[in-house]
C-alpha cells in the first residue's frame, strides 16, 4: 500500500497544529505591539512608539514565515482570529514589562514545537526553527535591555524622556 499522506505532506498533523498555534501567537504579538505603539504615541513617547511599530512589523514577518512554511510542506495554514487586545497601559514601564513577557512566551512556545519535532525526528522543521531561535535571542535581549533602562536612568525628572530617547538606539550585534 502506498504511503499517500506522506507524499502529500511533509510534516505530521501534530506539528502542523503546533505551527498553526504559533502563527496565531505571532499574529497576536504583532497586534499587541501595535497597540503598545499607539499607547506610546498618545503619551508622547515618540521613539518608543517607533520601536514598537518596528516590532509589530517583525512579528508579522515571523507569522508569514511560519505560514508559508506550513503551505510549502503541504499542510493547511490557518489565518488566525485575533481578539482581546489591550488598549490602555498603567505606566510607561508596564508597556516594556509586558513586551518582555510577550517575547519570553514566544520563545517558550517555539521551544515546545522543537521538543515535539525531536520526538518525531522531524529534523526538517527543526532546521527551520533554528532561524527563529536566533531571532528570539535578539528579541529577548532588546526587550530586556529596554526594561533595564528604567533602572539605569530612573524615572524621576526627565528620566522617562531619556529612556524614550535611548529605546530607539538598542541594538543587538553580538553576532551577525
Amino acid at each position, binding site marked *: *500500500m502506498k504511503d*499517500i499522506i506522506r507524499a502529500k*505532506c511533509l510534516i505530521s498533523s501534530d506539528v502542523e497544529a503546533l505551527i498553526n498555534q504559533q502563527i496565531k501567537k505571532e499574529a497576536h504579538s504583532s497586534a499587541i505591539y501595535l497597540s503598545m505603539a499607539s499607547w506610546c504615541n498618545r503619551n508622547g513617547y515618540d521613539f518608543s512608539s517607533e520601536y514598537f511599530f518596528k516590532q509589530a512589523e517583525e512579528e508579522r514577518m515571523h507569522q508569514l514565515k511560519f505560514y508559508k512554511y506550513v503551505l510549502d510542506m503541504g499542510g493547511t495554514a490557518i489565518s488566525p482570529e485575533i481578539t482581546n487586545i489591550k488598549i490602555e497601559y498603567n505606566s510607561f514601564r508596564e508597556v516594556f514589562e509586558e513586551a518582555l513577557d510577550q517575547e519570553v512566551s514566544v520563545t517558550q512556545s517555539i521551544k515546545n514545537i522543537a521538543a515535539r519535532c525531536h520526538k518525531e525526528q522531524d529534523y526538517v522543521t527543526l532546521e527551520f526553527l533554528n532561524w527563529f531561535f536566533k531571532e528570539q535571542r535578539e528579541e529577548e535581549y532588546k526587550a530586556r535591555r529596554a526594561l533595564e533602562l528604567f533602572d539605569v536612568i530612573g524615572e524621576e525628572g526627565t528620566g522617562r524622556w531619556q529612556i524614550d530617547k535611548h529605546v530607539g538606539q538598542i541594538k543587538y550585534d553580538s553576532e551577525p
Partner: protein
Amino acid sequence: MQEVSLLPTFDFSEVFSTASGAIFQSDSERCWYVDFAGKLARFDYRNLLKLKKAVYQVDIEQKLLSNDKSPDVEILFICASDHCYVLSLLQVIALKELLQGTFVMLELNHIICDRLYRIVA
C-alpha cells in the same frame, strides 16, 4: 472480432474495517473509499482530513448528556466534497472509531514504508 471488455480495475486494499464499515485505499487513484452508512464514497487526501476533522469535532459526550428535544441527528457536511453524511449519534461514534483505526493504520503504513523502502540499509 474479439470483444474487448473494459472492466475497471480494482486495486483496493483495505485499510481498516469495523462491524459497521470499512475504509479502502486505492493506490492508482491515490484516494480512499469510505464504505459507511450504506454508501461507498470517494475521498481524496484533503477531503479525508476534512472528514476526520468534522467527525472529531462532534462533541459526543455533550450530545449524550443533553436532554433537549432536538433529534439525535448529526449532519456532516464536508466543504468542496460531493458527499455528506446524515448520521445518528451511534453512527457518529462508529464512524469515529473507523477513522481512528484508519489513521492509526495509515501511520503504521507510513512507518513500514519508511523502514522498508526509504531507509537504505
